[in-house]
């Protein structure tokens, strides 16, 4: 049982005071970020990345901090869904449907604790899934050559719009824009500068952290300025939380739902282009179809809370599988986590498991620990987080903006990067208004150079023959999946998206 031995090693790494403290801090901050409308897992993690660097944390501790934030945000999103009927982040959208009616019936406390348990079940089993599935995927990935990698990257971009995408042209535009931005700087293979326009600052290329923080965090500030969310403060009334422990009968009633949703959510997380929002959505719809005989879903049925919460937390764990095993993230937040790894000079992918087993297994052990911490935090201490929700955006958003500036300035100490970040913030705002997804842009800037290098390596190996890209059965298979993944949303995308957004008709939210 090699796996368990590795896992035990992982616990030995994770169980130091520093790492435990970081996990605790990450869980706490993550829950708050998830709970606050307007701050989700991707921009929450984005703001904290520069901090992790400037604090001089090593690879494992930084990852522990940031993935704890990720898991925490998945837990936290439900709090405002249930209490205020405003999803704290996109994956928590479906939790509003039954959570808020339950709160109105005076069962807010039970809804919160039940959803906490469901989140725990989802995340716990998904972490086990990660342990067993990732090494299998690594075995396949070891067969990949440069041509297969190029096809894999193409697959990631073509499916990233996801089944919920309405306009594939805009996803493609975003991916190309990101790839184009990645081209800026000195070409790594021949040493000629590209697209630098003589600006010395650009020779190093654009720092993708600057792009991420600008696109995710600053654009959010602009959205708030546009809408003046301050006006929405008035109707936040105090909700009575009530009893905090759900009766056993309720847990028993929802157990099958939780388990089914966990499986489904995990699967949605592993598949490229799906992510946590879709995980919670399909879990909810399936449960509604399966067990909603008395038409109680939507009126405060506990199963209607358990399904999406187990689903989105399981998907969060599942999304780590392709990120760690292949180096190709399938969702926004895992793209941001990939940025962390790349900045720490760690290349995720099959070799990560053999070259940096301490990082992988330390991280996995930390996920288990974080999960227990989150369960403990989210049930007895949920009252604390409900109070944080009362912080109005007019105070919160400037803090977000300033912390973003501090983080980026802390890394480079240059005003030029801050200016580029403001530029990205404005660009992010315009693109969100136009319904262009931001995640492909980030992924493009992250993976652009690796993708190009694989292309050039493949063709150099075959002496300039471009047909080498579709030469092996593996790469042909990847291209076929990529093309299906790109075309499928054109057929069914509109319907799924319409259903997902029927409830919360918010434009331009960043998908998990």
């Amino acid at each position: 049982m090699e796996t368990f031995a590795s896992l035990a090693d992982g616990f030995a790494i994770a169980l130091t005071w520093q790492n435990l403290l970081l996990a605790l801090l990450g869980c706490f901050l993550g829950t708050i970020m998830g709970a606050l409308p307007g701050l989700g897992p991707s921009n929450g993690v984005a703001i904290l990345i520069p901090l992790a660097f400037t604090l001089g944390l090593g690879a494992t501790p930084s990852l522990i901090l940031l993935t704890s934030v990720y898991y925490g945000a998945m837990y936290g999103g439900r709090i405002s869904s249930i209490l205020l009927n405003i999803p704290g982040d996109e994956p928590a959208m479906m939790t509003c449907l039954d959570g808020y009616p339950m709160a109105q019936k005076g069962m807010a406390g039970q809804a919160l604790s039940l959803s906490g348990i469901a989140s725990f079940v989802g995340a716990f089993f998904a972490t086990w899934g990660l342990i067993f599935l990732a090494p299998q995927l690594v075995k396949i990935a070891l067969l990949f050559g440069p041509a297969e990698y190029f096809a894999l990257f193409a697959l990631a971009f073509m499916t990233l719009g996801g089944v919920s995408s309405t306009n594939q042209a805009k996803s493609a535009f975003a991916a190309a824009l990101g790839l184009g931005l990645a081209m800026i700087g000195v070409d790594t293979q021949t040493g000629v500068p590209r697209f630098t326009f003589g600006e010395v600052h650009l020779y190093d290329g654009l720092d993708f952290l600057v792009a991420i923080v600008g696109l995710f965090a600053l654009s959010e500030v602009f959205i708030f300025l546009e809408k003046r969310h301050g006006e929405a403060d008035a109707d936040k009334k105090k909700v009575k939380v009530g009893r905090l422990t759900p009766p056993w009968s309720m847990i028993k009633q929802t157990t099958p739902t939780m388990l089914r949703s966990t499986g489904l959510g995990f699967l949605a997380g592993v598949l490229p282009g799906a992510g946590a929002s879709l995980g919670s959505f399909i879990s909810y719809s399936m449960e509604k179809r399966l067990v909603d005989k008395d038409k109680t879903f939507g009126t405060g049925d506990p199963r209607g809370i358990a399904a999406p919460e187990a689903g989105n937390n399981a998907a969060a764990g599942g999304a780590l599988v392709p990120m760690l095993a292949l180096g190709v993230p399938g969702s926004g937040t895992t793209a941001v986590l990939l940025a962390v790894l790349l900045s720490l000079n760690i290349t995720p992918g099959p070799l990560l498991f053999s070259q940096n087993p301490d990082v992988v297994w330390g991280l996995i052990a930390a996920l288990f620990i974080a999960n227990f911490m989150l369960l403990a935090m989210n049930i007895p201490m949920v009252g604390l987080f409900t109070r944080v929700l009362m912080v109005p955006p007019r105070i919160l958003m400037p803090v977000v903006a300033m912390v973003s500036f501090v983080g980026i300035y802390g890394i480079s100490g240059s005003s030029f990067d801050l200016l580029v970040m403001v530029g990205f913030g404005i660009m992010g705002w315009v693109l969100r208004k136009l319904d262009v997804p931001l995640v492909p842009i980030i992924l493009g800037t992250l993976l652009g150079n690796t993708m190009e290098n694989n292309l050039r390596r493949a063709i150099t190996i075959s002496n300039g023959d471009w047909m080498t890209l579709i030469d092996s059965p593996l790469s042909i298979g990847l291209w076929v999946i990529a093309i299906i993944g790109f075309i499928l949303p054109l057929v069914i995308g509109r319907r799924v998206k319409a259903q997902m957004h029927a409830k919360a008709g918010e434009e331009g939210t960043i998908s998990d």
Partner: protein
Amino acid sequence: MSDRIFGVVGILLAVSFAFAALAIEESFLSDAVGPKAFPLIVAAVLGISSLVIALKPDAAPEWPSLDRLVEIGAAAVVMVLYAELLPVIGFVIATALAATYLTWRLGSGPIASVVTGLGTSVGIYVVFHLVLGLSLARGPLGF
């Protein structure tokens, strides 16, 4: 209409990107593909997708009214000024000013804004500089 303009802008961007790619000076030591090919592929994807966006536009988004646009523009100007002034006047003063402005524009009263701005700035300074030891921009007053 928004999407049509967006598409045209995207096509122009793709064309200029392609021209910039063609202008890349090749080194005499080049691999089989060279530094131009991939950027040209990217430009092609950018151009085609922009064309599709222009030909099949989505419903136009709800653009904010002019005063809201000015609001966003002003905030961007403040952020640019912040970036430029940060090394000159130091972290605490610059941040207090910028945070005050943003808080004020997001709907706080004038006095509350100044208090929040100062609080944000000093709070970040204490947590990030004094506790965590991050180096922040130092102004003439030493902070």
